[in-house]
């Protein structure tokens, strides 16, 4: 009797296990897309997106569903959602994805809707118009832009009696100042004139300053500019020894923030996060220009784009309209410390997040935004990162200049091509 009961229970448990696992599989495949009505809207972003509460307050009729994904897996996740015909109505997209999706017809062209949304294209910074020309229209709208600039430690400049950088500094001025700012003791460097460019974007900015187009027709266009940049950085690291050799791996250390390097080149986001609380006086300046080169720095942004398969386009337009309105743009500037793509909004300076001991030269930021271009960020990221690894290998003496300029650039372009 007992055994029979146990047998029955066993079968029930087995059946439940089978059904539950099948059910779980079915649930995995089911769509999470909302019904076709214009009061709901899904919006995807990575990590955090701070101004949504203000949007909700102004648009109580729209029920906003947030698709929040950790930064590392965002691109993969969104790609999978698109493949599964389950794309969010509005997606925040990085440059490379934006270009790829625009070219593959995954996101809507917005040119006809710009006037309705109150977007004045004349007011856009030059780089925004540039990327629109590249992909043949506005497939998304930039939420705000980060630039690359130069940072310097004022206390170290004062102590060494070196004049602060100006906007007409060249690479040579930077090198000369770095020499004066480098201190050694018993064969050990105790203070570096400059930190090594540990952010790959800086290398593409240097190549651009040296005269390269950086990206042309969807491929890397690097030559004499990169050659000049390689020789300049090699001189700084290995001849003058005023900046440390690069190392590989994730960047968890920052010599400038640690108060061990007098100057560094990096993204403008460092102002509001890494350098905000440092306990020395510092300021920013435009990146020094290459001799006989051109003004160039790499811009960084992300775009609001509307999925072509969205069933909630009216709500999506309302969302973009709010984000691109002056109110939305100012809120975004304050939250992200990025400058608005609209010149009229950017000039008001709401993006300026003042740290404890700097910066004051905000004109450097505006100048960088105006002369900046969307370059290496518009192509697939691995090839540009691989090339950066090879550039570092050259500085470390592990590969030749010619190998970088020919073999590594060609390989990167081959990879970029097969990614399209």
């Amino acid at each position: 009797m007992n055994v029979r009961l146990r047998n029955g229970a066993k079968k029930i448990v087995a059946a439940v296990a089978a059904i539950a696992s099948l059910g779980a599989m079915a649930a995995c495949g089911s769509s999470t897309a909302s019904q076709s009505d214009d009061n709901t809207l899904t919006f995807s972003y990575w990590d955090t997106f701070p101004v949504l509460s203000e949007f909700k307050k102004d648009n109580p009729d729209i029920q906003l569903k947030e698709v929040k994904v950790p930064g590392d897996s965002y691109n993969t996740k969104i790609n999978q959602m698109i493949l599964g015909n389950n794309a969010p109505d509005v997606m925040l997209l990085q440059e490379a994805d934006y270009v790829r999706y625009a070219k593959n017809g995954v996101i809507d062209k917005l040119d006809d809707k710009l006037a309705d949304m109150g977007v004045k294209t004349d007011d856009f910074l030059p780089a925004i118009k540039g990327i629109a020309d590249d992909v043949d229209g506005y497939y998304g709208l930039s939420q705000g832009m980060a630039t690359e600039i130069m940072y310097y430690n004022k206390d170290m400049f004062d102590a060494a009696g070196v004049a602060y950088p100006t906007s007409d500094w060249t690479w040579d001025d930077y090198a000369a100042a770095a020499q004066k700012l480098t201190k050694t003791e018993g064969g050990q460097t105790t203070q570096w004139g400059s930190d090594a460019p540990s952010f790959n974007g800086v290398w593409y900015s240097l190549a651009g300053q040296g005269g390269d187009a950086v990206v042309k027709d969807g491929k890397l266009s690097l030559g004499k500019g990169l050659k000049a940049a390689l020789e300049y950085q090699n001189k700084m690291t290995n001849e003058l020894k005023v900046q440390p050799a690069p190392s590989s791996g994730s960047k968890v250390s920052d010599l400038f923030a640690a108060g061990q390097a007098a100057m560094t080149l990096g993204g403008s986001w460092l102002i509001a996060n890494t350098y905000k609380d440092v306990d020395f006086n510092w300021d920013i300046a435009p990146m020094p220009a290459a001799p006989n080169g051109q003004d160039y720095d790499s811009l960084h942004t992300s775009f609001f784009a509307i999925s072509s398969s969205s069933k909630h386009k009216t709500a999506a337009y309302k969302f973009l309209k709010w984000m691109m309105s002056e109110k939305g743009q100012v809120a975004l500037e304050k939250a992200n410390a990025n400058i608005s793509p609209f010149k009229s909004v950017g000039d008001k300076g709401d993006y300026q997040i003042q740290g404890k001991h700097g910066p004051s030269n905000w004109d450097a930021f505006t100048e960088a935004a105006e002369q900046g271009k969307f370059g290496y960020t518009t192509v697939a990221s691995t090839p540009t990162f691989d090339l950066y690894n090879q550039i570092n290998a050259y500085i470390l003496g592990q590969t030749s200049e010619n190998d970088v300029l020919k073999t590594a650039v060609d390989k990167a372009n081959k990879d970029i091509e097969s990614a399209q």
Partner: protein
Amino acid sequence: MSTAAVSASRKDAKKPKRRSDAAAGWGFLSPWIIGFLLFSGFPILFSFYLSLTKWNLLGKPQFVGLQNYVDLMSGDSELGKTLLVTFVFTIINVGVSILFSLILAMLLNSKVRFKGLFQFFYYVPTIMPSVVMAGCMTLMFNPQLGIVNYVLKLIGVTNPPNWTGSNSLVWVVVAYASVFTFATGQQMLVFSAALKDVPTELYEAASLDGANGWQKFCHVTIPGIAPMMLFNVVSCTVNSFNGAFTLLYPLTGGGPGDATKVLGLLIYDKAFKSFNMGQASALAVVLFIIVAIIGALQFKLMDRK
């Protein structure tokens, strides 16, 4: 009563009953079988198919035949170098991991006070995400700010090395990091259990024969834990082929140059950063075959024992 019921049910146990028992058995197995078919079996088969296509993760895959494999075999392919790096990594990772897990397990089996505390400290790195561990390592081995070079300078080394910037020294960092991985902690537990199963009489007999500590280790301990040793080597080898990515991606990013670019990193880059799913799948098939061969060889070896 219950004995009577059992004998009655035995009498009843004819064919239909046995069939329903089998059904219950399958029912219990079904979560695993369905999970395997959907989440492992199907993706494996599908990646074989994808390796014959060109697909940028948008639109439909285009069939290109063996083109991806032809590209892999061509002169300018990264496959050869990447395979070499993968083997170097595997040897270092498995060697370090097995050695340290065995040493730690032996320490845990010695008679010391606060053994639980030691066990806790030895095992803690195992539950730490490898991304966090790799972050600590990059900071520790940072040439300018890291504690390793700080100590080296204190003891009088004038030009401490650029650890992760050197093609050879980067492997020292990788080997050191391998000590603190999930695999090492797991294997320590397995070894620890295996060591407890070695009969103490054997040690006593060896002592009577005048064997010293090293001789006892070589002739009693090692043969006693050999099956578990083989198990650990197999699982660690497969794991380091497949799991190299989680350790190396944050630790070195494949650099300097492409000195530590293992197959796992290359596959990830090709698939999700370069959107070249066809070639990534072809590489995954290569990895699958290599791991399958190594696994089969090691199991053969295990059978012989």
